């Protein structure tokens, strides 16, 4: 039985649908991310799960109980807000104690629970401080402790790391994930940061304009994006459009793209494929051997731009066919060679050609 079931939830604000027919489950102890650009409906979905919004259609089940009609204070789901929403007139300890007080938990039980959770997030020494006396990272830990101490069935996180600076955000990512795994708590995490979602989640649900685009593991999402939107949103992608001819996609500019096995579309239909820049290789010699040419998608290209990114060069090229393509070239071996205007050969394996559904 999943800890959380979202079933066909739709919510409209005025005429616009904020969330349209969204369904997903989160298994016991699973870390699920809702990922998408702002306005995609991910936060609305989270607030519906918390009970702060009532869906127009659909149901929410937490631990097997239909809670759709229950107010937030009768649900076992606690929410960590983007701005933490710590009570400014209460100390750290009072903030954490709040949920237990509302549940009328006796002092003898509440005391140790508060102590344990404050130890867990490393805020025990600062329990007498007020929120305004804490740094962003500390406030974030307190907000987490306040939500965890009530032992919710589902922990909801609304972009909790987005107000932290880059370095701290990286640390908190790891810390939060470790904490979640230690407590084995079912978690729904809302973010617009694809890197964050990939790094932390068991499963990522990509949303766009109120609907789910893809619900998959991080690796599957990256390697097998289902739609053009996902391909572009997760990492970056060269998206090539064309018509299927003899099992290859032929672009308007004349490039023929081979694809693995059964993934090709039916003859004559329009199609779209994506290739990750990481998978595109750049050969400085003019031509590949005949054997290699048979195994790869190969094209001649001219370097239009090379931009240094630390561990790699981002190399933008124009193919002789007129299509544009980007590749990541490992930095150590390429420094002197990526001369703008020089002619190179690019190639990639057909298995790295991903068919995707174009965005309407």
């Amino acid at each position, binding site marked *: 039985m999943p800890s959380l079931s979202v079933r066909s939830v739709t919510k409209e604000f005025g005429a616009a649908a904020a969330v349209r027919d969204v369904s997903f489950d989160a298994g016991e102890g699973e870390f699920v991310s809702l990922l998408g650009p702002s306005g995609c409906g991910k936060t609305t979905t989270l607030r519906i799960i918390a009970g702060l919004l009532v869906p127009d259609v659909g149901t929410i089940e937490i631990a097997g109980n239909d809670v759709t009609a229950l107010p937030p204070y009768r649900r076992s789901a606690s929410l960590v807000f983007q701005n*933490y929403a710590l009570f400014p007139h209460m100390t750290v300890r009072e903030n954490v104690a709040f949920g237990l007080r509302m549940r009328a938990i006796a002092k003898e039980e509440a005391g140790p629970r508060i102590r344990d959770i404050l130890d867990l997030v490393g805020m025990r020494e600062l329990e007498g401080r007020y929120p305004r006396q804490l740094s962003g990272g500390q406030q974030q830990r307190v907000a987490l402790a306040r939500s965890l101490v009530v032992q919710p069935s589902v922990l909801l996180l609304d972009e909790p790391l987005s107000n932290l600076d880059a370095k701290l955000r990286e640390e908190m990512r790891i810390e939060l994930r470790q904490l979640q795994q230690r407590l084995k708590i079912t978690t729904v995490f809302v973010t617009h940061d694809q890197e964050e979602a990939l790094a932390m989640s068991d499963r990522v649900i990509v949303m766009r304009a109120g609907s789910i685009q893809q619900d998959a593991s991080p690796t599957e999402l990256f390697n097998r994006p289902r739609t053009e939107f996902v391909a572009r949103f997760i990492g970056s992608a060269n998206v090539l459009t064309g018509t299927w001819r003899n099992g290859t996609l032929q672009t308007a500019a004349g490039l023929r793209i081979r694809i693995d096995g059964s993934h090709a579309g039916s003859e004559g239909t329009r199609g779209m494929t994506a290739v990750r820049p990481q998978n595109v290789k750049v050969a400085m010699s003019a031509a590949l051997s005949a054997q290699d040419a048979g195994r790869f998608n190969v094209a001649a290209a001219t370097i239009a731009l090379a931009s240094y990114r630390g561990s790699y060069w981002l190399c933008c090229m124009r193919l002789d066919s007129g299509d544009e393509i980007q590749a990541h070239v490992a930095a150590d071996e390429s420094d002197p060679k990526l001369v703008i205007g020089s002619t190179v050969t690019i190639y990639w394996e057909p298995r790295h050609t991903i068919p995707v559904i174009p965005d309407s």
Partner: protein
Amino acid sequence: MALGRVGAGRFATSAVAWLAYLIMLAPIGAIVWLSLFDSDIIAIPPPGYSLRSYQSMFASGNFIASFRLSLVVAVGATVISLALGTLASIAIVRGKFPGSDILASVFLAPLAVPGIVLGLAIYIFFFKVGAAIGIRIAGTMTSLILAHVVLTLPWTIRFTSAGLTTIDKNLEDAAMTLGAPPLRTFWHVTFPLMRASLVAAAVFAFLTSYNALEMSLFLVGPGMTTVPIVLLQRVSWNFDPSVAAMATVQVAISAVALIILTRLVGAERIFGGQRSS
């Protein structure tokens, strides 16, 4: 040279400011001065200075009774308008129902009506309603308090809704997801964070009611007089130092209320409204 000009400019600005203060405060100074005359009439220069006008004021039952009445009415109007104003603000600020903006303006409307018109209208209203239901309302203490609520409510709504808008709604949502029903959320989260605006609202409501003259003129019953009415009567009858003494006490009460307010809340928070998180 340039520096000297800046210095001169600054000097001129502060001189104007001090002049403005002086013009505003001079009449109050004059009243305090008059109240200390050792005389039954206002004669300048005074024959001497003493506290006898204060003695005669406190000896007069009329004065004391009017202070007491003003106080009871002001406290009553403050408490009622504070409760109603807070509830109205919650509805207007948090509810955001159709027409809530219009309602917010309607609540402020009494500020735009001259007190004397308001007083007359309320008197006629109470008189008619009282006649219809067979209970005398006009001229009672209750009617006076209710009428003052009309005057004080715009202030309490303004201050409490200003206070409420600065409270992050996420705080209330957080409390609810942590298991607090709406009333407990209000009591433990919203109310403590509104305290500054509640104090400000209370003080302004109190002062508005305490100093209200025109409206009360119509509504006081036989034998009921508030301080401003007594002052008006005395001034039109015979302006002597005891009137100045009474006015001084009146000013002192207002001043003390404002000092308490700024001490408790801080002037910038009353008018500026700080973010609470």
